[in-house]
């Protein structure tokens, strides 16, 4: 056991964060301000998500941390180690075994259940920010549901690219009320947000927490004549052969050879273990 308080933060701070989380769950999509603490890692490394996870974890929990779908990248490994050390909780790479999953920029492929919590790391929580830089004004716009500006952004996309080119951080409307930034997840993941698990969003530098309760309606904004499309690379996974998962493109050599692999490493591994195989599955294995 370490000399840290359970999960690093002191009890008063965790209580403050839990209050913000509960308020966020009560008002889905609404950005609740909270007194974000200095964490032993730089901003941009998930300080918001870590604080939300710290306030959420109990000693009985099993934690999984992913970065862009992968369990083995620096960010995911260091956060997992952080909680192993400060909270002594069990950790896992298997989505189904985890009770709390902290994620950066992905939703796991496997369907989540009612006893799971998904914690997102959020760089910029304000979806209106790039069109209206004044925070006083964006708060008023949320309060009065003045969301015309969101569609101006999509309009610009179509007029410039012939289609809505926004591929990640695609804005959604939660339970018919607040427009919300789903954090930089690919828009392929947007439809999954209507799920059984609790979704919590933490932005450390911006000091905001927001939440989507289970089975909440989450609609991606679009135009009648340019409906929302959850897109992905038009390939199957070269390792496990999955047709339905979000893929990363990997350049193999200077000759331009490349492969597509599942961004969700756990999903890919479990499929291969179940005997599925893709184009390069045999040689890679």
């Amino acid at each position, binding site marked *: 056991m370490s000399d840290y308080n359970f999960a690093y933060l002191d009890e008063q701070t965790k209580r403050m964060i839990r209050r913000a989380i509960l308020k966020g769950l009560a008002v889905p999509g609404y950005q609740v301000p909270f007194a974000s603490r200095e964490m032993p890692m730089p901003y941009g490394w998930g300080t918001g998500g870590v604080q939300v996870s710290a306030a959420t974890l109990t000693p009985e929990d099993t934690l999984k941390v992913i970065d862009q779908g992968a369990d083995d990248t620096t960010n995911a490994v260091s956060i997992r180690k952080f909680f192993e050390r400060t909270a002594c909780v069990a950790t896992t790479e298997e989505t189904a075994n985890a009770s709390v999953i902290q994620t950066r920029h992905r939703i796991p492929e496997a369907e989540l259940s009612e006893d799971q919590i998904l914690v997102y790391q959020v760089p910029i929580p304000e979806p209106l920010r790039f069109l209206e830089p004044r925070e006083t004004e964006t708060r008023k716009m949320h309060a009065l549901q003045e969301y015309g500006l969101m569609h*101006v952004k999509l*309009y610009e996309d179509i007029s410039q690219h012939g289609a809505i080119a926004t591929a990640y951080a695609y804005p959604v409307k939660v339970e018919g009320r607040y427009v919300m930034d789903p954090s930089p997840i690919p828009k392929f993941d947007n439809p999954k947000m209507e799920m059984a698990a609790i979704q919590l969003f933490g932005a450390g530098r911006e000091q905001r927490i927001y939440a989507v309760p289970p089975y909440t309606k989450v609609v991606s904004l679009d135009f009648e004549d340019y409906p929302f499309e959850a897109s992905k690379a038009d390939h199957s996974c070269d390792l496990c052969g999955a047709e339905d998962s979000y893929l990363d493109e990997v350049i193999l050599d200077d000759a331009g050879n490349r492969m597509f692999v599942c961004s969700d490493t756990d999903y890919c591994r479990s499929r291969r273990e179940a005997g599925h195989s893709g184009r390069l599955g045999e040689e890679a294995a």
Partner: protein
Amino acid sequence: MTPLLQVKNVAKMYGARIGCTEVNFDLYPGEVMGIVGESGSGKSTLLNSLAGHLTPDRGEVIFDTRADGPVDTVTMSEPQRRMLSRTDWAFVHQHARDGLRMSVSAGGNIGERLMAVGDRHYGSIRERAADWLGRVEIADSRIDDRPSAFSGGMQQRLQIARNLVTGPRLVFMDEPTGGLDVSVQARLLDLLRGLVREMGLSAIIVTHDLAVVRLLADRLMVMKDGHVVESGLTDQVLDDPQHGYTQLLVSSVLQV
């Protein structure tokens, strides 16, 4: 006939200093009123107080709303007032940059008010944006260009299109031709006159340019030190001014 706008005893103070005070007038549908006066006379303060950008310290600004008839806009709720300023009101700023989104294309600028009131069909939004570009004499090939690539006169016309696309009934204009060279001014004035008549707009135009009000305004209000010193029919006030200050103002205009 119900006045579109009834202004009753409006006053705006900046601490102990008077912004404007004791302003009273009725504006009827289709009427264009000019407010003239030198810099610091309170004309812009008055305009901003009427348009809801500033909260008057005293008085009522009663607008004849489509749904509920005459309502005092000073005491109405903020969402209602903001809704009004996106639908039935328009505000044309002196500097087009204050009224445009410079990082959004011309089409997006015009479409914003449509999307704000719930239009969700890209094709129809774009069609109306193109139509309005035509009405303000901008080639529709410029629809995807940003206003930063436009000349001053084009920016001002784009601002007008952006404001008028939702068919407002009352337009506030703050020095709409200020800072434009004279040939561009003439074109803009002609355009505004046409739109005012076609759409049956009422307008309140603040300017210090007497030639502008002579061409555009039916009525004139002359302000000095926050007070209205004279008002009446535009050509009567300009050709037969009754107040000493107006006489000075009219006689100070350089003849071309």
